[in-house]
């Protein structure tokens, strides 16, 4: 019953995406086996949808959902601005909400302007509508959707391995997380036995991805603080990680190393693994040296401390995920809280900070570079032997899997589970994908809940009251990607 409803919610297009998203979280809650019964809630939501109510009336309140991060996404809060934000997030491509019509842009000295979509401060296509009073930011409404490519819609009917190419290009800098999440979900519903070694290699890729993204975030912060010597040093470290990716995984941004049922790369030789690890360790060591210099620089610290503060309550009620949530003291990390193999086997320390400001988030990132290095060491050290691909070594196997994937899967293997869900801790936080396949093994529906998407509201909230010159620091500390939320 519940599943049926969820399927309808996820699969139906005219329904507001807010609902899909809360549905995702409910399914996640169900999977958590925490004993809560979500059925009634979903029934209520479904009834609301049928009655064609507005988005907002469908968003459950904090009390209804309980203060658990996995059940919160777009919850009502006391913020009067929230409705507008949500509307702007779901607006049609490129449209902006009319702030004036809501009485927000009125008053002596209030000035509104649009920032983006062509700006170097944000090197992606996305905009912000600012309401400012002097230097202070009163409100800010992110305008996404400039580059929505509609990946979820366009892969319907594709074979999973064709779809993988699009899914991993949803967000190029989170591609390992995206492809692993998708492949794991598809393998789950097809009951494909993925070799152990492949799963471990995927985790290595995800951790490498985390390292280079965190380095990037740090370097951009340093750039914004005009510490260009240090910024360039960190950019150089990032370049080294990218080259490691190319060397061991075949692509600088880890495209194409994953496939359904395994991975294409090979880390079976111990020398390779040791070499890879010693390079990673060296990078992490140099990074920590740079960070040490940095933490003694008052100029840098002053810019970060107390900038874009997000309280724990706000983070919870706005549904923040990833380093943003952890920077505000929420101890949630999918690698611990919702581990897939091999994270259930290895130890990854959970890094949090109670500051809640740009500094807190940056500290979380800095420590995560170190913890990812430790994780990579363990992963590479204990990498299970054996093949990395289902059917590897058989002649023509690759071609088989490329061209006639669905033909090799029997229909009977598809009947057990209706949909499958996977959650991965991407560099910016909790990435969720729900995949549903049809009888022939083709994609029936895919739902992605990107990590950046969940963090827009927190970002807008945290900027209130800051000066405009702090915008860059706040933006980089949140690690938001437009490509990610505009998948």
């Amino acid at each position, binding site marked *: 019953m519940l599943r049926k409803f969820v399927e309808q919610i996820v699969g139906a297009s005219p329904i507001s995406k807010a609902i899909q998203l809360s549905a995702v979280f409910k399914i996640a809650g169900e999977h958590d086996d925490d004993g809560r019964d979500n059925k009634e809630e979903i029934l209520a939501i479904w009834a609301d949808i049928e009655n064609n109510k507005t988005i907002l009336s469908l968003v459950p309140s904090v009390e209804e959902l309980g203060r658990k991060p996995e059940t919160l996404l777009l919850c009502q809060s006391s913020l009067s601005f929230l409705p507008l934000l949500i509307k702007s997030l779901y607006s049609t491509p490129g449209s902006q909400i009319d702030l004036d019509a809501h009485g927000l842009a009125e008053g002596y000295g209030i000035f509104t302007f649009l920032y983006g979509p062509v700006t170097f401060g944000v090197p*992606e296509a996305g905009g912000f509508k600012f309401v400012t009073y002097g230097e202070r930011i009163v409100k800010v409404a992110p305008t996404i959707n400039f*580059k929505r490519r509609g990946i979820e819609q366009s892969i319907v009917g594709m074979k999973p391995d064709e779809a993988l190419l*699009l899914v991993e*290009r949803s967000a190029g800098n989170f591609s390992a997380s995206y492809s692993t999440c998708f492949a794991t979900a598809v393998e789950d519903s097809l009951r494909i036995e993925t070799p152990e070694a492949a799963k471990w290699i995927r985790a290595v890729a995800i951790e490498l991805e985390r390292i280079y993204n965190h380095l990037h975030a740090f370097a951009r912060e340093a750039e914004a603080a005009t510490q260009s010597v*240090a910024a360039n040093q960190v950019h150089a470290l990032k370049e080294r990680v990218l080259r490691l990716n190319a060397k061991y995984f*075949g692509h600088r*941004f880890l495209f194409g190393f994953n496939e359904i049922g395994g991975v294409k790369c090979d880390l079976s030789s111990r020398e390779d693994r040791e070499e890879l690890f010693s390079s990673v360790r060296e990078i992490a060591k140099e990074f920590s040296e740079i960070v040490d210099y940095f933490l003694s620089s008052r100029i840098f610290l002053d810019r970060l401390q107390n900038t874009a503060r997000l309280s724990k309550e706000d983070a919870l009620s706005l549904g923040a995920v990833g380093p943003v949530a952890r920077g505000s003291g929420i101890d949630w990390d999918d690698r611990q809280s919702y581990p897939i193999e091999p994270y259930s086997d290895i130890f990854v320390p959970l890094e949090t900070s109670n500051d809640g400001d740009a500094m807190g988030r940056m500290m979380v990132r800095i420590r995560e570079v170190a913890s990812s290095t430790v994780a990579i060491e363990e992963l590479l050290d204990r990498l299970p032997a054996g093949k990395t691909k289902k059917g590897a070594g058989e002649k023509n196997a690759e071609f088989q899997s490329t061209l006639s994937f669905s033909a090799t899967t029997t229909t009977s293997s598809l009947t057990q589970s209706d949909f499958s869900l996977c959650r991965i801790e991407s560099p910016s936080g909790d990435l969720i994908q729900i995949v549903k396949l049809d009888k022939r093994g083709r994609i029936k529906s895919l739902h992605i809940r990107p990590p950046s998407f969940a963090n827009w509201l927190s970002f807008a909230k945290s900027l209130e009251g800051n000066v405009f010159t702090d915008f860059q620091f706040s933006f980089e500390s949140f690690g938001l990607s437009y490509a990610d939320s505009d998948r």
Partner: protein
Amino acid sequence: MKLWVLRGLKKGMLTTKFPKEQPTQDELSRKSFPPTPSKVSDWERGRLICPTGAIQYDSQLAKSEIDLGKCIYCQRCSSAGFEFPETRDSTSALKATFATNGDSAYESDERLLFEKYSKLWKSFKKSFHVLMIDVGSCNACNFEVLNLSNPYYDFNRLGIFFTNSPKHADALIVVGALNKAMVDVLKRTYDNIPSPKLVISVGACSISGGIFQNTESFASPVRKVIPVDVVVPGCPPTPIQILQGLLIATGRIKTTESFVRAPTDIEETSEQEEEEKNEGSSSFKGVSG
């Protein structure tokens, strides 16, 4: 402060020798090499496998070519016998980056670029300001363009700089699959750049739509909206390739046959565009042999 200097000295020089010398294997990361047909290549099967339609084959017209502007280097066609050499001498790798098959539309490429911009090349040498615009990318291309300023590539040493404003720009770097919502923004940005201006279209997405060419919000290849001078294929192209594109645009690398200039066939009406799309015509093709 002293510490930074010491650190810098300790690290030595990281910057690539390109363009004075050929880039090393390390600098051209592995998948920057395009597929090459071999003796066992099965063109028909390749055409079926290729997710972007980069492999074009027609047995009746005896037409077989790989359109590098569409290829996303996914290596699927390796199962149909196409080769992806892991090592390759870098000269040929770079040539392939801007390869053309001698399609008549490109025959006058270099001459056109020369005619249009050669007077400026001298002034571009010291100061060439580029503005990057994202019209719907996956962010990887953005990363690679930004990487141009890191110490490994350091394009400032060649007198090339990023700028934040169209009014200060000499050239526009376009990345991403042109989204319908961005068409107008792109046009307005282009109009705001003072002439003469160069446009460099980076990545399979901006050249042809790449993997996103069938998504609903994809409008058209960038060159159909604004005139493009140099294209840099790849998904994403490596910084070296982008740098090479910039150098070609400013006349710093002399080539005889190794770059493509996309034709400036700007559509006046949407009808024409429709026709174009239906024919599936693509205006520049890659090497085929």
